[in-house]
């Protein structure tokens, strides 16, 4: 936890810029703000429509369900791909959506459902590597791009949304916003208040892909091969 060579380096920059070192900077009022106009004034239903539309482009299955039906929907998603091993993010949202009970029932039915548990340390990663599906909760959902924003933390390890072949995001409808602008603003406002940002913020848009071989789109490279969003009406 050190900073090396800073003064020399920054002095050189200031010298090149022909002035003394600056110890503060005022962000300018930018002359245009096109980002604010995207889906301005749209309500949650309209944003959901945009999300569904975008999901078709990003190779992502988008399901809409209610809190009561969430268990059935999850089971359906797993069965479709014959998935037996599941790793899920934990924390307060598990209870809020009744998922603890749902997972318990599923365990009795023979599924292996592992809820991320910091006490188990690195073993969580090994479990995630072997799991067929990873379940996470979206913190902010960007309608325009079809993006799930995760503030990774002790309950939501980075591996859950990365290592299993199938990525499942539970999206509370209330988390929908027009675009990345609103998510960035939340983080910026928090920073200003002195609340530090998560060690990892993951903006995830569908499954992993590449166009590195002859510009063919290949879906599923290092990260998940399949992505499903489950929007839960919580409003």
């Amino acid at each position: 936890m050190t900073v090396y060579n800073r003064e020399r380096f920054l002095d050189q920059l200031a010298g090149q810029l022909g002035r003394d070192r600056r110890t503060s900077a005022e962000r300018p009022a930018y002359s245009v703000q096109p980002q604010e106009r995207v889906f301005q004034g749209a309500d949650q239903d309209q944003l959901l429509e945009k999300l569904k539309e975008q999901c078709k482009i990003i190779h992502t299955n988008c399901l809409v369900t209610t809190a009561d039906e969430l268990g059935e929907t999850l089971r359906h998603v797993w069965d479709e791909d014959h998935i037996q091993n599941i790793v899920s993010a934990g924390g307060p949202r598990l209870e809020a959506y009744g998922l603890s009970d749902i997972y318990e029932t599923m365990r009795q039915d023979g599924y292996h459902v592992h809820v991320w548990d910091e006490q188990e340390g690195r073993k969580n990663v090994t479990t995630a590597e072997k799991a067929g599906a990873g379940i996470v909760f979206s913190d902010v959902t960007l309608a325009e791009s079809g993006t799930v924003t995760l503030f990774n933390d002790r309950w939501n390890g980075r591996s859950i949304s990365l290592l299993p072949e199938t990525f499942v995001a539970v999206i509370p409808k209330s988390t929908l916003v027009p675009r990345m602008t609103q998510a960035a603003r939340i983080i910026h406002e928090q920073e200003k208040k002195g609340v530090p940002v998560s060690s990892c913020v993951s903006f995830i848009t569908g499954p992993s892909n590449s166009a590195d071989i002859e510009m063919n789109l290949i879906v599923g490279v290092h990260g998940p091969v399949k992505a499903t969003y489950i929007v839960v009406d919580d409003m």
Partner: protein
Amino acid sequence: MSIKIGTKTYADRIQEGIDNTFMRHAVSSAQGRFRTGRLKAAEELGDWEDWRTLGEEIRTHTMENLDYYLYQLSEQVEKRGGTVFFAETAEEANTYVQKVAEEKQARKVVKSKSMVTEEIGLNEALEKSGCEVVESDLGEWILQLDEDPPSHIVTPALHKNKSQIRETFVKKKGYTKTDDPEELAAFAREQLRQDFLEADIGVTGCNFAVAESGTVTLVTNEGNARMVSTLPDTQIAVMGMERIVPTWEELEVLVSLLTRAAVGQKLTSYITSLTGTRLENEVDGPEDFHLVIVDNGRSKILGTEFQSALHCIRCAACINVCPVYRHVGGHSYNSIYPGPIGAVLTPLLDGYEDHKELPYASSLCAACTEACPVKIPLHEHLIRHREIIVEKEQKTTKAERLAMTGFAQWASTPAAYKLSTKMAGTVLKPWTKDGSIKNGPGPMKAWTAARDFPAPAKKSFRTWFDEREKRREKDDRL
């Protein structure tokens, strides 16, 4: 590798480029797809010119206050448990990374795609320290197995076809399946998964650092950068000193400009923002985080008439529209930064001596300047380079100069250009599923005006929204 990728003369490289038919088709088809994707994305975004203006304003403000923002960044990274190393030269950067690797007794290093580590030759340095270095971006991995330099900054293995790739996999990794891209990628996934799990150190680049929070943001599609920053216990991020924004609000604007200009996606699959080390109670992510901030000649551009070259966000839009790049391919530029931005930047970073022909690798048609999402006046910079070269002792030989200008002139004739756009129109876009484009918005208007693109059938959100509202009002009245 360093910024320069070989010792062949410029003329030889161009000849090789022109002789390589596959490469030329690949490049021109890629250019078409990239361009179509970018235009479609720009149109969907609406107000593309406003976005570009905003991008330019952000970059200008940041460069003018670069010393302050880098200071703030380093303070924040330190606060979040990271170590920051300011490196004036490539050697300083490499020596520092070697030192970390030695302290960790690292044997395996996995990397995600990073232009700046190519530029400083980090892989060679790490190998000298006895580390095995594995490039994990699919294109980079292919090139690494084949010991070939990249030819494009977004899709580095653009010049290779799938049967060449298959052959490489067979020879180097005992691959037994077909040249189907999906199968090739599945093989890479399986092979590299093990490397991610075993690696001691992950090395990433940095698309944008955020000064206010000490965050490093990576913009990717494959998921390898997430692997590299999730699994190894030590992460080293290497950034060019200009790759920084003041706050998250500027970050999101530049990310949007980058993904749309680079690949025509609204956002790529993964935008990953990493701040310091993992926190207590967190299980994955690095316990040790280092940020290396590299100058390597950049500061000499600050305060000069070329300062806006530092605004570049490495989207490759200028490369994708360049008629000269289309015909000679990436390797001809003899630099890891090809195309118009390469022709501007390489002489600035590495001196005119070895790159005196580069500013001539342009027809000055200005398509690059029009395409640039942060409005860098690329062709004007090229003209200035030429003037400087001429002023400074006539460095070019007449023959070379003629070859290049003559070629560039031909490549930019309307006939040559039409031919390539025609091809471009028939190929599918890799990332956007549907739709074709109408007359391009701002950036490409001059070029696309000549072509009839089918108009998009989809309503804009605004119209859709308005109509919906009207319907609602009517319903309410009933």
